[in-house]
């Protein structure tokens, strides 16, 4: 090996040379910004766990040289919750796609956010199911043409930011793949957050999505994001409008709420303390 090495090389899992992502896909952008964020924060790589579900975005966990788990489709969040609850000192991050996190896995998102388990969820929203070949999903815009909406999509897409805010996430941000530095800054903020944090990255899938919406080149979708996104400077999720004509990006929630694993530890400790004070082994009748 020559002495020349990419500065982020040390964060990439050895042996994972084969990249499954298409050229121009924004999954790599998110991966890149995630690695830069942990680099800049100087985080202990031994204390980060990345969990993914199934999909193109879900392959991210494999490439990061930390402990990582690749779960079943939609189930990254409950696996991450189990890890976080069992070892709260770990920084547990979920990186996955919109179909994975909000269609098949939607229920888990609601409840992890509601409980305020201190995991961080990064969703790459590319408007479709990339891995299975461009089917419509829960974030597909109305009217979009995909392999399963050959006559145009008649369903309304979810607004992920407003959903996350409604169910109790303590940090919520949205950026597009065009806003690379801001993605990184948000990831850094989320990683430092105690409670449940959510970042939506509106992504580019030229191969399965763009190609079918008259935006075949990666640059076409980038230009769309550049032209139609507006940065909101208010912490107000009601401003997080998302239509093909207007993509409002920015930070929308940044609050504190008691975190689940801390509440749980507190409860456990007080129960054990009381038993010890009373000189009892157990309070429970068998």
């Amino acid at each position, binding site marked *: 090996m020559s002495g020349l090495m990419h500065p982020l090389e040390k964060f990439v*899992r050895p*042996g*994972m040379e084969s990249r499954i992502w298409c050229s121009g896909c924004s999954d790599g952008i998110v991966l890149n910004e995630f690695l830069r964020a942990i680099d800049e924060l100087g985080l202990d*790589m*031994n*204390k980060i*766990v990345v*969990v993914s579900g199934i999909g193109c975005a879900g392959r991210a*966990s*494999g490439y990061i*040289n*930390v*402990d*990582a*788990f*690749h*779960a*079943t489709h939609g*189930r990254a*969040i*409950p*696996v*991450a*919750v*189990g*890890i*976080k*609850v*069992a*070892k709260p*000192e*770990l920084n547990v991050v979920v990186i996955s796609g919109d179909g994975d996190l909000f269609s098949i896995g939607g*229920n*888990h998102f*609601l*409840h992890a956010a509601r409980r305020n388990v201190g995991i961080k969820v990064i969703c790459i929203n590319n408007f479709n199911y990339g891995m299975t070949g461009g089917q419509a999903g829960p974030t597909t815009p109305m009217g979009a043409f995909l392999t399963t909406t050959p006559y145009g999509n008649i369903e309304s897409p979810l607004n992920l930011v407003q959903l996350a805010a409604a169910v109790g996430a303590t940090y919520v941000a949205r950026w597009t793949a065009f806003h690379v530095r801001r993605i990184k800054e948000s990831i850094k903020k989320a990683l430092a957050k105690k409670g449940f944090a959510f970042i939506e990255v509106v992504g580019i899938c030229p191969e399965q999505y763009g190609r079918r919406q008259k935006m075949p080149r990666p640059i076409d979708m980038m230009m769309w994001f550049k032209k139609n996104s507006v940065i909101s400077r208010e912490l107000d999720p009601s401003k997080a409008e998302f239509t093909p004509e207007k993509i409002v990006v920015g930070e929308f929630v940044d609050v504190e709420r008691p975190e689940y694993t801390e509440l*749980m530890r507190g*409860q*456990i400790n007080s*129960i*054990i303390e009381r*038993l010890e004070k009373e000189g009892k*082994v*157990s*309070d*429970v009748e*068998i």
Partner: protein
Amino acid sequence: MRRDVLTGSYFTLGDIACAEGALAAGCRYFAGYPITPATEIAEHMARRMPEVGGIYIQMEDEIASIASAIGASYAGMKAMTATSGPGFSLMQENIGLAVMTEAPLVIVNVMRGGPSTGQPTRGGQQDVMQTKWGSHGDYEVIAFAPSSVQEMFDLTIEAFNCAERFRCPAFVLAEENVGHLREKLVIPEPHEIRLVERKRPKCDPKEYAPFKPDEDLIPPMAHFGEGFRFYATGLTHNEKGLPRTVDPDIHAKLVRRLNEKIRRHAKEIIKVKTLYLDDADICVVAYGIVSRSAASAVRLAREMGIKAGLLKLVTLWPFPSDEISRLSEGIKKFLVCEMNEGQIVREVERCSKCSKVSFLPKLGGEIHTPKEILSAIKGAL
């Protein structure tokens, strides 16, 4: 006295004995979702887990319950979930994930009558084949069938020991009739309980290959957060844990090992109990609650001069094939009694070399009475 092993004699419920068995086995993570007739396990865990410093979490459904237990297992905890038929069906995909990622895990199914919502408050033995074949792909599992409150305690510990030793999901398959049975439970002294812990890597983290097995086909297991920085995936993977999904040899080798690590140790795992089998003409085969009626029936038959014996299957999976084929050389007839339309009977038919196999099914949540089994014994001969 230890908080996790409440040594003493009790008059209690099967479900509670199961929960106490788990705590005594070192289980410190329980995730569940309410369902009759397994809810008492969750309720007891909710009260007891904090007392031992462990975690009780009620998840949003059974899919999340098993998924989070897999996560907790990888974070280093002995983990369990408990459910009944409908929840068990929901868990199937992640049972396969636990098999593929070799996550030690105990799954309790307090069986009720199905299909579908069926008979929530009545027992059955209808999930035996689902336990073996419910998730997609080829895999082996370990499953025990307790027949008493005491066995709910003892076999839950045994299930943990197997899950930890073999790095796989292990099952406790109890009928509602046992889960809701109230009888004597003796919790022994902690030192009398044999516990098995998962094998841990001794190598330098840089050398660690998370799915490279030792001689016994079982890879040592590192935990998340210990500096090993490894990847576990449900995709076909090589010994380093990296996805290799199109190489036929890697896939075949992995799947064979996952099966073989259990098959090769079947003798260690399989437990049966026998009654009067030495000179028997007819062998009643039963498991779980039905084995108790069967034992009475066999005693009644002996009083009448009929040479009947009982083979009680304590382990259902891996199936005690050798025991059946050995017996089939000496006896004239098997009579299989099950609370279903015929599941284990097919395994008995497969394994018995020459003997005829007859079957006594029972549906509806009722246990076979000794009298019913006795008349089937008479009819079979």
